[in-house]
């Protein structure tokens, strides 16, 4: 009964309500953030240990594909943070768990209020960046080459 596939399948099939969806979104957003975070921390440490690689990666991350990923990370961070605070507050005052459904919906609401403007700003600046590069005869989908950052080598 404890097999992973069965559990995941039944978690999706069981007709849970807002609490179950909040839990799923919290898990998925947490894993997404962690995956990004580990890469981010090890990459940023290169600022000291391998500056050429770091400068190259910063240029690479301006690619719109990574830009979309960043919007995804923003969504994951905002949802995970707001829902996490909801859980912390309700755990602190157990009798407030009777307001579970309302609190879940408030979190979704706050999430959209924060995320939609953020996404618009981020996508807007991505598009602006691509247009600026196109105007200069370059292409924002181009993968930069490592040697372009030789001046940062230690």
């Amino acid at each position, binding site marked *: 009964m404890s097999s992973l596939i069965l*559990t995941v399948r039944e978690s999706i099939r069981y007709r849970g309500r807002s609490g179950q969806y909040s839990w799923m979104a919290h*898990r998925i957003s947490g894993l997404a953030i962690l995956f990004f*975070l580990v890469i981010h*921390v090890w990459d940023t*440490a290169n600022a000291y240990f391998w500056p050429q690689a770091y400068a190259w990666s910063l240029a690479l991350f*301006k690619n719109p594909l990574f830009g979309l990923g960043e919007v995804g990370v923003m969504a994951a961070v*905002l949802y995970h*943070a707001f829902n996490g605070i909801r859980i912390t507050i309700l755990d602190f005052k157990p009798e407030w768990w009777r307001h579970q459904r309302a609190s879940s919906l408030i979190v979704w609401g706050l999430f959209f209020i924060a995320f939609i403007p953020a996404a618009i700003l*981020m996508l807007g*600046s991505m598009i602006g960046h691509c247009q600026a590069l196109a105007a200069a005869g370059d292409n924002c989908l181009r993968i930069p080459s490592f040697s372009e950052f030789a001046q940062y080598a230690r």
Partner: protein
Amino acid sequence: MAALTEKPTGKMTVRLVELDRSPERIGWLFMRLSGVAMLILAVGHMVIQHILNSSTDLTLQFVAVQWSSWGWKAYDIFLLWMAIPHGIRGLLTILKDYIHSPALGRIIGILLALFVIATVIWATIAIALFDPAMVP
């Protein structure tokens, strides 16, 4: 094993219990405390890097300007010490849900703990020793 005292306060009886400090309980508290800290630090970091600035302006020069102040270095180091353990503990929670062999669970716990220590130390050294003067 544990102590018990009676302390009636008002109309409802409240009693004190003393329990051994289990690692689960410390982990449970840490997730919430670090989570609250990161509400400010992590969301703040995202807002600063992606909203107040644009990620298209993010260059090594930008980082050098930020990390020329010990305030920003301390902010990032503290965020690192909150985020990596919080995230890896979350991963461990999910893995422990599905991995039932105690031996395998212990091995994974140790490997993840080593990963946390290595990551946190590596990145802390990087931030602390980073010298903006190195950047052309």
